[in-house]
């Protein structure tokens, strides 16, 4: 059908975007293997691969690795690398969604106060001894905290039933500050008896070090389901980029849709903060870079951001273990070191363009 010969069906773009996905998947796999071989005891990548093969292939494969290496790989490093993928992907997807929902490229789960809300809830559970600490209850609490923070920010930023991006960002930053101070208070309060403090401290700066297999299930499930739902709703996310008025005329109940998006991003952010703490700026940097490369269509931005976010966090986590080896930096410290200047650069650019 050649009604419009010039319309150039987006084959070019589609091929490039598909290739990007394939390249990123390969890069993620390579990064995971490198991440597993990195550490105080370096393990050769071929041994890493054989241990992984031994565990996941139905037929038995003889391993070149020793028992100790096998334990290190399977029980500590692989869950850590996979958690990096999941956390990075979740934060990047959440960032991409937030940015289009508030129509501002500066929105990020961390900047927005969502991560802080999740942290407060998780830290409160740990230090105040509320409820039973499990891999299910802590993420639920963190989700609750994230959602409460998001909705508060949303309500503060809303005037006469409408939300402006500028107000939303201001409210989000104020909320981050407030909640961070509550978190600090809770930690200081608990630090005398010493219970749970080291865990809490690793949370505060954001770290993947405590990962084990049990931590992966819920975040992986949430990431998979949320990304699928979001990709299926990508046309509506695209419409929001044009504006609320146009989106309303296209049959989108803008207020309602925005609320659903806040719930989904809170869920994504809450469950990963429960495991790894508040790792900032991945949700800011990754979607931005992805959009520069493949455009703003959410059908592509979301899956590509997920892969790129996972890749970035795994790579940064490798760096976090190498920079001051044999000790390691919290990965959140490094993402902030990369992300904060980037944020300032974007802020400068956006205020230069149009207010």
């Amino acid at each position, binding site marked *: *059908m050649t009604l419009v010969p010039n319309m*150039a069906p987006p084959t070019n773009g589609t091929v490039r975007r598909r290739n990007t996905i394939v390249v990123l998947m390969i890069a993620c796999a390579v990064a995971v293997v490198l991440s597993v071989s990195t550490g105080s005891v370096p393990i050769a990548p071929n041994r890493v691969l054989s241990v992984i093969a031994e565990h996941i292939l139905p037929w038995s494969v003889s391993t070149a690795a020793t028992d100790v290496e096998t334990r290190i790989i399977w029980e500590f490093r692989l869950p850590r690398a996979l958690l990096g993928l999941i956390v990075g992907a979740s934060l990047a997807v959440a960032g991409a969604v937030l940015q289009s929902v508030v129509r501002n490229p500066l929105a990020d789960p961390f900047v927005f106060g969502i991560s802080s809300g999740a942290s407060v809830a998780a830290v409160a559970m740990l230090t105040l001894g509320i409820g039973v600490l499990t891999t299910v209850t802590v993420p639920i609490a963190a989700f609750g905290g994230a959602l409460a923070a998001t909705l508060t920010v949303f309500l503060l930023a809303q005037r006469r039933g409408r939300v402006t991006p500028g107000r939303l960002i201001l409210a989000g930053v104020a909320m981050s500050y407030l909640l961070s101070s509550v978190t600090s208070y809770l930690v200081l309060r608990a630090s005398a008896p010493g219970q749970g403090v080291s865990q809490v401290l690793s949370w505060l700066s954001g770290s993947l070090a405590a990962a084990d297999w049990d931590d992966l299930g819920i975040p992986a499930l949430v990431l998979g389901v949320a990304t699928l739902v979001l990709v299926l709703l990508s046309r509506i996310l695209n419409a929001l980029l*044009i504006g609320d008025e146009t989106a309303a005329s296209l049959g*989108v109940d803008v207020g309602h849709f925005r609320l659903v998006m806040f719930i989904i991003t809170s869920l994504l952010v809450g469950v990963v903060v429960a495991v790894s703490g508040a790792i900032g700026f991945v949700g800011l940097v990754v979607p931005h870079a992805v959009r520069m490369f493949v*455009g*703003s269509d959410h059908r592509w931005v979301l899956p590509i951001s997920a892969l790129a976010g996972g890749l970035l966090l795994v790579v940064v986590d490798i760096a976090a273990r190498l920079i001051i080896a044999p000790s390691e930096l919290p990965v959140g410290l490094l993402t902030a070191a990369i992300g904060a200047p980037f944020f300032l650069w974007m802020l400068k650019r956006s205020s230069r363009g149009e207010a």
Partner: protein
Amino acid sequence: MSTQGGMEAAALYVDKITVEIAGRTIVEEISLSAERNVVGLIGPNGSGKSTVLRAIYRMLRPASGRVLAADRDVWKSRPREAARVTAAVVQDGPSDLELTVAECVATGRIAHGPLFGSSVQPEDTLAIERAMMRAGVNDLANRDMSSLSGGERQRVQLARALAQEPRILVLDEPTNHLDIRHQLELMTLVRTLGVTTLVTLHDLNLAAAYCDRLVILSKGQVVASGTPGETLTPDLLLKVFGIRAQSITNPLTGRMQLAYGHETELKS
């Protein structure tokens, strides 16, 4: 009636709507109707034109009154159902995050097909291509929206609305940013669509030349409605717009036109 491009006109009735924002009445008891014709909504800045349109495309819920599109109460329908009948070209603020032209036009298909559906159906592709061709933006398909001129952007928004295959079209100052030739082309295009159209215009001559009927708003109320000849009288123009005007016949088109000037520069 004309069914060009699968579009068929439907009637629009606005029945005594009152819209309030933060307790302030913005427009009061507005009634108007349009059926298979082009109706112009005109009035000075701040008279409530955009507000009336917002109540039609489900952006602002009226405090009282009804909006009927194709005999269905817009505010009692589901948003997607309403959007299958009515499309709008509106004034949205600029965005830092920009789609390409083709992606923007494709959002016109949201109300068609399943809610959860990111794949593009053949009928969607057809509607998108046809809409882009009609609005004359097919050459721009792969351009970023942010790289377009104001007038090109406006035409892309029209293409987006046409991709919706609406039976009623609502246009808020669609000729904004367009050069004269494109203004005339756009209004001619609107007339040939055969879709019921409600359009706000600031250019009274454009309104006189291309609208079948005009509804004149002043301070949130309808002060006149009828054909351009009936409504654009010197008295009314003086009262509502504060200008002295006289209708003349355009020697080129033979249509009615207004000659006007500011009081300070009148000859007599």
